[in-house]
């Protein structure tokens, strides 16, 4: 088949595309899921110092809040699974209770501290206890509505000392 022979050089690209779609998130393959499904609600997080004032975490540790949210979100998804296994129905992330959000938030704060360099660690200890705030954000009648920031977890100086 001359047509098939002509398509043959494209087989490499088709193979890579199929592997990406089948293996999804397994490096180096990815199906690029981000922003593949826009929802009318999401959330963001920020960190605070002992006084409850925001701290510029990107300047301090080099970590962008988007990345910190991904760590926290992985924990929330696990909390959903746990709640689903316990109560038979998985709650939506925004319906998780403050108690259910605490462990993912504290794990996130611990990860931030553990992965920081010595200078950043010193700055984080000086700012302790660190707080993680969660803000739900949604669209209502073409307008953006934000909830009051909710302090979902904290990490004290003593807990930093015993961090991994």
């Amino acid at each position, binding site marked *: 088949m001359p*047509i098939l022979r*002509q*398509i043959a*050089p*494209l087989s*490499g*690209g*088709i193979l*890579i*595309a199929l592997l*990406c*779609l089948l293996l999804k*998130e*397994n*490096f*180096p*393959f*990815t*199906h*690029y*899921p*981000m*922003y*593949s*499904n*826009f*929802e*009318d*609600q*999401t*959330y*963001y997080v*920020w*960190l605070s110092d002992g006084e409850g004032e*925001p701290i*510029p*975490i*990107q*300047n301090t540790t080099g970590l*962008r*809040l*988007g*990345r910190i*949210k*991904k*760590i926290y*979100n*992985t*924990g929330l998804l696990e909390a959903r699974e746990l709640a689903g296994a316990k109560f038979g129905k998985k709650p939506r992330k925004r319906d998780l209770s403050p108690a259910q959000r605490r462990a993912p938030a504290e794990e996130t704060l611990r*990860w931030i501290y553990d*992965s920081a*360099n010595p200078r950043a660690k010193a700055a984080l200890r000086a700012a302790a206890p660190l707080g993680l705030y969660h*803000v739900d*954000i*949604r*669209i209502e009648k*073409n*307008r*953006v509505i934000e909830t009051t920031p909710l302090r979902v977890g904290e990490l004290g100086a003593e807990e930093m000392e015993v961090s*991994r």
Partner: protein
Amino acid sequence: MIERLRKFLSHFHPRPVAAWELLIMRVLFALVVYKTLPNAGQIYDTQTSPNGIAHFVDLTFLAADGVYPALKIAMAAALAIYASGFLLPLVLPFILIAHVMIRTLFNSQGWIHHGVQMVSLVLLAQTLVVLTFLVYRLLKKRPFPLTGGRSMGSYFLFYSQMAIISIYVVSVVSKVDRSDGQWFAKSHYIGLHVVKAERDRYYGKLHDPPPGDVPAARIMLANPNLTRLFLGAGVLLELLAFLALYGRGAALAFSLSMIVFHRSIAALMSIYFHFNEMLLVIFLVNAPYWIVLIFRKSRAAPPPPAPATALDI
């Protein structure tokens, strides 16, 4: 009809490429690969959420004393050899495996970074090309048959381009699949994510003005159809990405359009795909080719007519 299709498809083939073009591409790509290596502080000694090969191999050995600095030096040496074009069947598999291990450990911390998959996939495509040529030679006892002025470099470039392009097409399939076909209808919700990006920017650095109204988001939410049109154009570009393989002109047009689209998303949402842009520039824009072409054409052009003199008049 069939004949037309055959003629159209005949363009989607590796085409001759000059050795100096390939040299420039390899040098630039080697620099990009090196740039994607994380600094030592980002080589974690845990893999809490294993990803890819981390499901089967404990990659935390990379965090042991001295391992990563030594590997980084070895990578630099291998990339220098790669850039020179020698020993590709030896150095490319090493670079690929090391790159995948390092970035897999990075991605095994409970979140997935999507910035460098394209780099690894281009390395994979290039490795497969050089190994195919090597295996063919070993098995058939003769070089891989090349016609029409093609070289191994032709395949090297063609499959690198294809690795880049296939990722854009995959991204479209994911949009349709994950949104149950609702992506276009819901795309104006991007306004909400623009606000979120603005908040992330503010709370990350506390440099910008405090959170408040975000005009771009307001305009997007107030004009859903205009927003759908803008984002739809980007998705159409991704969907038709394979047309970039039609020829050098198509590759230039597609890659420049894609870079503009990446820049627009970066401005709106602070989502950066620096390495994707770099690969578009290296393998699809291929500026050195166009510069040389323009230079040669300007030299080959007939000299401009002499200015009129008094005698002519």
